[in-house]
């Protein structure tokens, strides 16, 4: 790991070079290490710690961008506790998360098992299943708004063709959540591919051994596939939860938070508080709230589910 084999005389060269040459090997290594990671450290200070400090300052202030921030003490916090719109927004976000994440996980796992089959044209199926996940978010929102259109949408057409009722997907607060779950589950291609790679990484010999022991298809899934896949299931679960707390584009463009605030997801609520209502102080408090929720959620997931994960090669 030596950077310079020859150590020139300390009197040669520019001042900086002389200073550098005076350092011990260990000091040089440390210096070089920090030079390499310096962009990240600076970025962390500028774009993470700085904004976080600003947010911390603003939580105690009222500020609409125009006048100077006004100190209001804990007013923003007490407002948060008695805010029915925030309560609604949290309810929407949590209900969506609790329904869509497990459902998406199961569906992605199921699809991954399907496309793990040995067929000649399997690559075509893999592509078809993956494509929905790369559709740009805005185009995706417009497409689904049209699919869920009450009068002329394809989904209601299919339902009515089978004799079902005309559903007000985007007008009825009771149905709109299901609509959002459906469009989310349609785009599970990313986690599906991660599952597929995991499935292909399970040594075939485990299945053969299980079969010799008399395990059926169901038992092989239960006692070989699931334990071997548990780290990947866990990973997809964590990513799924984090993503489910970030719904923004579809809520803004498909329903604009409605009907009756039934899709007022938390990030949309924060965004509107800051940029439509110009309440920067309160928006800063809500940002901290989102941060706290995500931290708590990660902690709970790692604490109660992470401990059940089976690692074939721990520490690898």
């Amino acid at each position, binding site marked *: 790991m030596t950077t310079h084999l020859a150590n020139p005389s300390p009197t040669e060269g520019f001042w900086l070079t002389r200073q550098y040459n005076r350092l011990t090997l260990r000091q040089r290594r440390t210096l070089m290490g920090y030079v*390499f990671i310096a962009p990240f450290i600076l970025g962390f200070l500028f*774009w993470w710690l700085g904004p976080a400090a600003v947010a911390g300052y*603003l939580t105690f202030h009222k500020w609409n961008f125009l006048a100077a921030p006004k100190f209001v003490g804990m007013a923003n916090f007490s407002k948060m506790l008695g805010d029915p719109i925030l309560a609604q927004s949290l309810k929407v976000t949590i209900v969506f998360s609790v329904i869509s994440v497990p459902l998406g996980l199961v569906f992605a796992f199921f699809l991954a098992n399907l496309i793990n089959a040995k067929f000649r044209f399997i690559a075509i199926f893999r*592509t078809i299943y993956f494509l929905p996940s790369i559709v740009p978010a805005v185009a995706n929102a417009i497409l689904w708004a049209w699919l869920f259109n009450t009068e002329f949408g394809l989904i209601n057409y299919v339902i009515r063709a089978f004799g079902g009722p005309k559903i007000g997907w985007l007008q009825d607060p009771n149905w709109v959540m299901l609509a959002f779950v459906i469009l989310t589950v349609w785009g599970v291609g990313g986690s599906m591919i991660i599952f597929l790679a995991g499935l292909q990484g399970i040594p075939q010999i485990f299945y053969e051994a299980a079969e010799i022991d008399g395990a059926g298809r169901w038992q092989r899934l239960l006692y070989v596939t699931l334990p071997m896949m548990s780290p990947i299931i866990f990973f997809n679960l964590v990513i799924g939860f984090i993503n489910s707390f970030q719904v923004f584009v579809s809520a803004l*463009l498909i329903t604009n938070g409605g009907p009756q605030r039934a899709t007022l997801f938390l990030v949309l609520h924060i965004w509107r508080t800051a940029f439509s209502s110009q309440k920067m102080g309160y928006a800063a408090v809500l940002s901290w709230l989102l941060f706290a929720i995500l931290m708590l959620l990660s902690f709970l997931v790692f604490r109660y589910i992470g401990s059940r994960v089976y690692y074939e090669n721990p520490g690898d």
Partner: protein
Amino acid sequence: MGFNEKPAEYVESRRRPKSYGDIFFHWLTVFLLVFFAVVMITPFIWLLSSSLKTQINIFQYPPQLIPDPIVPENYVYALTYKPFGIYFRNTVLVAGLNVIAVVFTSSFCAYGFARMRFPGRDFWFGIVMATLFLPYAVLLVPSFIVFSRLGWVDTFLPLVVPPFFGGGAFNIFLMRQFFRTIPEEIADAARIDGCSEFGVYWRIMLPLSKPALITIGIFTFLFAWNDLIGPITYLRSPDNFTIAAGLASFRSQTDISWDLQLAASTAVTLPVILLFFLAQRYFIQGVVMTGLKG
């Protein structure tokens, strides 16, 4: 790993006669594969077909699956109704700068994390991992305040400058994982020949990491192409809009012109799908690298 490779483990390893259960299961799998393929692809077909309908035909029940007449002019109207040329130029500018930033700075930082040994390294890498799990929605409001103080609102700077500082935790993490698979002996050989640490990074590691660099480059480009929340937060004048922001404002202004909205959406989606078919391998590799090597 690509879509077209045959799974290596599945070479005919057992030659047991097929039971009725196996045959049933085989056809059940085929049925489910086809069924879900139809479910997944129908929205695309519906998108394409609706985007080619006349305004009258689009509001028709029962809907036509194959439009009659086919109206490709929808695309011309949709893409000239708003200056999509300017949006496209803006998006390519932002995305291009982001790709350059991410490819160089994330690999630079990742080299430090992967190959240098110094006190504090693990602490800082812990911070990289912590920011990895924090979505940028959390920082949206506070960073907006910082950028507005800097006078950067309604310029591309808030979208373009931050990636030059480390290029994002996700990319640093990905590049670090990749660098760790390259044998250290190659770097040592270069050092003995008098190569500096920067030289090892620039002349040895970067050329050997092309697949990983292409992968993060593609992901960064797609992110910039798709991102809405950044552009609508920071960009004010329509001349600065990116494709995503332009399409979103197009939607709010042409509320019932579904034919035009869907034509514009198709036009925005097509380049992404094209990119996917050109660089399938890197897409899959990127997705898999995020999931498995953690």
